[in-house]
């Protein structure tokens, strides 16, 4: 029960900690409001609890495929919101209205991610905490899981800050783009599961290199939607989403900072 709780916490909550780390790493660069991010997180927690209250009703809608449709729609919204956020952040025009838009879109992304990812764990946590022998394991599991998630997100934060400063000025935006395409991959998984997308056989299986349900697998899945055994349609959708993201985001052409890395090394 303890290990299961840790793994479930990791698989569901790592995404929340990672998006928080990514947004905080560009907070100063994009003049994001700390208050807006805090409100976004708070609204996310409230939305998560509201969703938990009505999640079983949603799941029974549309011939028992309601939850997949709900998650797929919100994943698409978050994907476009992230692209919008990067697009307006890349334009070198500083004014209050633009900064507000940036902060608001970042806050909405954070709120939606918390709502989508947190609800699954809440379903497990509240579903089992009435069991006498489960309570201790649940709490210790959450503490251990939170510790691992915080450690990974702190590392990611410093990784992004270092790379933004020393190597590639748009590292965080690049990771955010991969993250948003990961959401498209999750969407395609959901739509395949309810038979909306035509499913074909898996084109490869990378489980022998990185198991999708291992700790590293969870990390890669949260970071860029790692799928060990996708279908050809999923791979096509992923690269289409990546292409659209690069076109929409318009990353600057020369953000390389190798000379600064050389300075550090010398």
């Amino acid at each position: 029960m303890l290990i299961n709780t840790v793994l479930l916490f990791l698989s569901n909550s790592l995404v929340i900690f990672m998006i928080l780390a990514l947004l905080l790493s560009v907070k100063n660069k994009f003049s994001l409001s700390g208050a807006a991010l805090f409100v976004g997180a708070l609204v996310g927690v409230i939305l998560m609890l509201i969703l938990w209250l009505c999640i079983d009703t949603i799941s029974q809608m549309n011939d028992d495929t309601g939850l997949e449709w709900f998650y797929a729609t919100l994943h698409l919204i978050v994907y476009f919101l992230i692209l919008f956020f990067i697009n307006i952040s890349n334009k070198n025009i500083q004014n209050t209205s633009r900064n507000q838009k940036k902060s608001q879109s970042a806050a909405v992304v954070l709120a939606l991610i918390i709502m989508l990812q947190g609800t699954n764990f809440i379903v497990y946590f509240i579903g089992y905490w009435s069991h006498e022998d489960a309570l201790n394991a649940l709490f210790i599991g959450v503490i251990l899981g939170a510790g691992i998630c915080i450690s990974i997100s702190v590392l990611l934060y410093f990784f992004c800050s270092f790379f933004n400063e020393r190597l590639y000025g748009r590292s965080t935006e690049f990771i955010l783009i991969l993250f948003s395409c990961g959401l498209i991959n999750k969407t395609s998984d959901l739509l395949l599961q309810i038979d909306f997308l035509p499913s074909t056989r898996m084109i490869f299986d990378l489980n022998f290199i990185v198991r999708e349900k291992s700790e590293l697998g969870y990390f890669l899945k949260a970071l860029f939607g790692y799928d060990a055994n996708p279908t050809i349609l999923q791979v096509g959708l992923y690269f289409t989403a990546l292409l659209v993201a690069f076109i929409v985001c318009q990353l600057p052409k020369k953000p390389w900072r190798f000379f600064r890395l050389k300075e550090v090394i010398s």
Partner: protein
Amino acid sequence: MKTHAVFIKKISIISIVLFLTFSPDVWAKRTEYVLELKDHLFFPAVITIPPNEKVKLIIYNRDTTPEEFDSFDLNREKVIFPNKKAVIFIGPLPVGEYQFFGEFNPNSAKGTISVKSTLHNKEAIEPIIENNRGDI
């Protein structure tokens, strides 16, 4: 030139939507198989399905706690709420054995999808208790 590009873009989007909506594969009738979860155990623990065919798996959760149907082999994951049912489509699969389990109780809730070529489609498993949708 710009109008032409916009027109092509619109046509492409409409084509993709139409392809996905009216694809014969998407709207084809699937054979249904029923699986039940009781006391954190799957009944039946082994389901046999034909190869290279997409099938509909209906899973009833008879427990008072939620469970998550999970399978690495099938690449499927879905939460089933207490006293509710869930629907998952699997396949087309080649002949072989595919493991699945309940992610909330992985030690007890385990099962296998066995894909065999000799099976007739009519061997779909009937539920132990007849249910109304979303009310069991």
